[in-house]
């Protein structure tokens, strides 16, 4: 195990470049999927039957099929559809980069999970809060910014945390559609040096680092959004 260290040191810069790519994909996807989640939750809560149905279909369908299937389907089919389109229009072929496809797919998948998170959080807000805002003469936008959004974040935070942790781990799937992310680079280094255990352990530890830092960050966010809540002793009430 210890004679592996010089080799690990040799490959570490490349693996760290993969680490940066993994973090970039995770952050870009989570931002996009939060937006999709807001849209999905708004659709489900719109009270418009067709929109609500569409929002529900999106969230149920996406969550009923493995991430990997979506990843493969979107990456390979989107390219073919695009080829047909560019052929028909007589344009030059546009090649979808695995980077864009990865972010697009992850956002599409986790948008469904965020839809459920935000919907649940919106439903958890006591109607009296919004009535009170109305009684104070706040407009719709003002209510959203000052009352609904901060309250929703409080209820949504555990779900957001969970989605983010699952999403960061799902980024490993982009290695299957050919992206040079941390998982792939470590696995390649492992097979070319005949030290697959050591190198995959390196990427596992780097993933643990992302998880640990995220947990710390969310602890801080939770105290931020819990302001104004009387802390009760944990346990049965």
């Amino acid at each position, binding site marked *: 195990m210890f004679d592996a260290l010089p080799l690990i040191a040799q490959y570490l810069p490349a693996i760290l470049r993969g680490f940066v790519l993994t973090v970039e994909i995770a952050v870009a996807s989570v931002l996009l999927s939060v937006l999709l989640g807001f849209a999905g939750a708004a659709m489900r809560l719109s009270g418009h039957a067709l929109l609500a149905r569409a929002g529900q279909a999106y969230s149920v369908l996406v969550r009923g*099929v493995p*991430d990997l299937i979506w990843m*493969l389907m979107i990456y390979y*089919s989107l390219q073919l559809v695009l080829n047909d389109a560019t052929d028909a229009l007589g344009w030059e072929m546009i090649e979808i980069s695995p980077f864009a496809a990865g972010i697009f797919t992850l956002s599409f998948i986790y948008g469904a999970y965020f839809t459920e998170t935000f919907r649940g959080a919106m439903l958890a807000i006591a109607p009296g809060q919004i009535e009170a805002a109305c009684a104070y003469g706040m407009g719709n936008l003002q209510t959203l910014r000052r009352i609904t959004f901060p309250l929703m974040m409080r209820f949504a935070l555990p779900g957001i945390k969970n989605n983010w942790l699952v999403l960061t781990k799902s*980024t*490993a*799937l982009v290695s299957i559609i050919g992206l040079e992310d941390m998982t792939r680079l470590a696995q390649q280094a492992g097979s070319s040096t005949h030290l697959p255990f050591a190198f995959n352990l390196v990427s*596992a530890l780097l993933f643990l680092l992302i998880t640990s830092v995220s947990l710390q960050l969310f602890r801080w966010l939770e105290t931020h959004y819990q302001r104004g809540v009387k802390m009760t002793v944990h*346990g049965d009430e």
Partner: protein
Amino acid sequence: MSEDSSLYVFAQALWQCAQALPMTLLLTGLSVAAGFCMAVPLGIAHHRRHTLSARLVRAYVYFFTGTPLLVQIYLIYYGLPGFAFVNDLMQINALAFLKDGFAWVLLALLLNTAAYSTEIFSGAIRNTDAGEVEAARAYGMGTRMAMRRIILPSALRRALPAYSNEVILTMHATALASTVAVMEVTNAANLFVTETYQPFAAYAAAAVVYFTLTSTLVGGFKWLEGRYLRHVRHRG
């Protein structure tokens, strides 16, 4: 069927994926069953805060819930045979099945789902109503008997909604077995793509198979919840 060619291709893909369904079911069933047997004792150890065994279980859970399953599969499938004693085991004729991806993927899936289930069960044990434990004590039950007769049956029932979700995620996770050449539903779809170059039909067919399986599991667990969580529903 022959007139609409894309529908025909889809039907072919669906047939190919359906033939690989037993492998997906086998991987799911074995890893969930073994994971459950592992997670119950680990969950009991996990919820005791400061013992050595609790620390070890926590470290295990932390590692397997904090890293991607794909990395765990690589670590086990490519990594473990690198150790001399594992390699020696693989040379034994009776253990020749270790040369296939199946055994290693199963090990990875089982360790992964056992870690998540441990967390779920431990949480359910921790949240047992203090009154239930007190009542067990008042009847003269010791720690072990109270755990076996009162706490575990109550905790496992309350864990059912979270655990059903974990079972579905494990079924979805078996798709990753395709990365090490196990012929389950996703790999059947991959094969169909290389044969016909029809990725959309192939993966849509796989999606239909997985979605049907998900719906069946959701339905099954709804029925189980109706049966075993009746007392909770009435209280609400």
